[in-house]
């Protein structure tokens, strides 16, 4: 399987999904197009492009040749983003960032504990001071007031 064929298949599935979801929206008429008109038109174009990609994708790189050496880091970073989503308004900006940065510096990058502590505290509290206090960008304080 090549990357173009796999990519094309993904896009084709997306086009079919959009067309399926579009069925609940009124299409309207040509003179009065409804909210479903353009999404359907676009998903049709996307399906055509996806099919071309699949048909012409024979000579692209093989999927097996794609390397994911940074995969472990990528997963951990995505998990951190997920944690930030869940914790930001509950724990507050400073505590959330402190935990997030400590995890990335300490667990993922294995820096020395005092570097982890210093950097995490300085960055989380420092960025809060710059954005919230200095630039008046409202950041969440959470249940603990942090």
């Amino acid at each position, binding site marked *: 399987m090549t990357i173009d064929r796999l990519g094309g298949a993904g896009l084709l599935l997306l086009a079919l999904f959009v067309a399926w979801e579009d069925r609940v929206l009124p299409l309207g008429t040509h003179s009065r197009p409804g*909210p479903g008109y353009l999404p359907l038109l676009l998903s049709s174009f996307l399906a055509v492009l996806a099919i071309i990609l699949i048909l012409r994708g024979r000579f692209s790189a093989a999927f097996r040749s794609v390397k994911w050496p*940074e995969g472990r880091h990528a997963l951990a970073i995505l998990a951190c983003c997920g944690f930030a*989503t869940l914790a930001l308004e509950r724990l507050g900006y400073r505590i959330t960032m402190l935990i997030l940065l400590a995890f990335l510096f300490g667990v993922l*990058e294995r820096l020395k504990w005092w570097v982890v502590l210093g950097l995490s505290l300085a960055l989380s509290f420092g960025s809060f001071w710059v*954005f919230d206090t200095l630039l008046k*960008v409202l950041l969440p304080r959470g249940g603990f007031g942090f």
Partner: protein
Amino acid sequence: MFETLQNLLLGFSAALTPANLFYALMGCLIGTMVGVLPGVGPLAGISLLLPTTFGLNPTAALILLAGVYYGAMYGGSTTSILMRIPGEAASVMTCIDGYAMAQKGRAGPALAIAAIGSYIAGTMSVVGLMILAPPLAKFALGFGPPEYSTLLILGLLVLGYMTGGSMIKNLAMIILGLLLGMIGIDHFTGYFRFSYGIVALGDGIGVVPVAVGLFGVAEILASAGQPTRPEVLKPHLRDLIPSGQEFRDSAGPVGRGTILGFLIGIIPGSAHIISTFISYAVERKVSRHPERFGKGAIEGVAGPESANNAASCGALVPMLALGVPTGPIPAVLLAALMVHGINPGPLFIKEQPVIFWGLIASMYVGNFVLLLLNLPLVGIFVNFLRIPYKILYPTILMFCVVGVYAVNTSVVDIVIMTAMGLLGYVLRKFDFETAPIVLGVVLAPIIEMSLRQSLAMSNGSYAIFIQRPISLVFLVAALVMIFLALKPLIRKGLDWRARLIKAENGDAL
């Protein structure tokens, strides 16, 4: 002419206030840092700074963001010359001869010529912007929905062609962006589309989480855990002055790069990258000693760097005069303007002269600030490159979260950013360009509105697009673009886009 000068004076009176001078200075400094640091391109940089401008008046906000824009364009050259790592994509061509010069102990003159060339190109192309934008806006006053529809379609097709790589893939990414831009309330009927009961999606997917996700988070995902970068060279201030011969050799490339860059900047697509590529090719072609290229020819630095900065300015012409962004960075700037209640387009220059001319004047000031500050501060900027990436990327991620959250104070935006980061990461692996997605998201509402209005005007007939002359011209141009894209399928050999990819991959041209 007299009116233009009068307006420019009005602009300088707005730009030269102490507060706005400070914002221009800050914008240039932050922009240069953004350009120097790997993983934070100008697009993510502008997006992340957007929330910090909410408390500012529109003129100051625009001055700050524009400063970041051209500061980042300059900053990218520093890493190219000193480390052979382009801070952003437009600096790829500078790597070739800039780094070769650095290896010969001529890093200082390369940096100086890059700065001087950028200054001259930036200043000259502001003159072009000043001359071209007002008449273009006047001309565009005659545009109706059909003209706008075809102009936008042409713009997207040109973007698909100019972005490089496979046009089929680029078009698919544009459509993906347009579909993402359809999420939310349909403004004609009030229907919720693809929002699955999530109220926060009613206003649609914002351009900031999309841009930060695709360019900031995706870059972090792709580079975290990679081996450490090579040693950085640190030039001293006294080494920066180029020789007389180097000045003479650079004059022509700077002039040609300025004109080329400005003209290419107006065309949709990744203008910065393309302009540097074309400028490098032109310089090698016109040189009496083309064999010097790749081995440290100053012309290979002067031309692309000038073209790069001129293109940044050229890209603002259609954005300010027509309200049509030609690439992802102008698209984010457009979104920033809209946040501040300004709608760029044909009426913008007429109705908001202080903001428009203030921006123009601030660009003169900003270019001067860049020249004045960046050369003496190059040693300090270089120090940023010494920060290990394992410390840098968690910091960048923190700024991504805070920047995205602050736009709407909504965690839904962080979810969108994360999803876009993952999407961008996977798309890179599959060799897809992500820039067209951002433009699609921004243009989706404008395209939909103009298309539906056009069809309502014509009672459902698509013939309206060929019955109106301007619209017909745009359609013909769109067809030409499709033909150009199909040409490599018929004729053998590499077209310029394939050669660009080769250059980006570090292969010899």
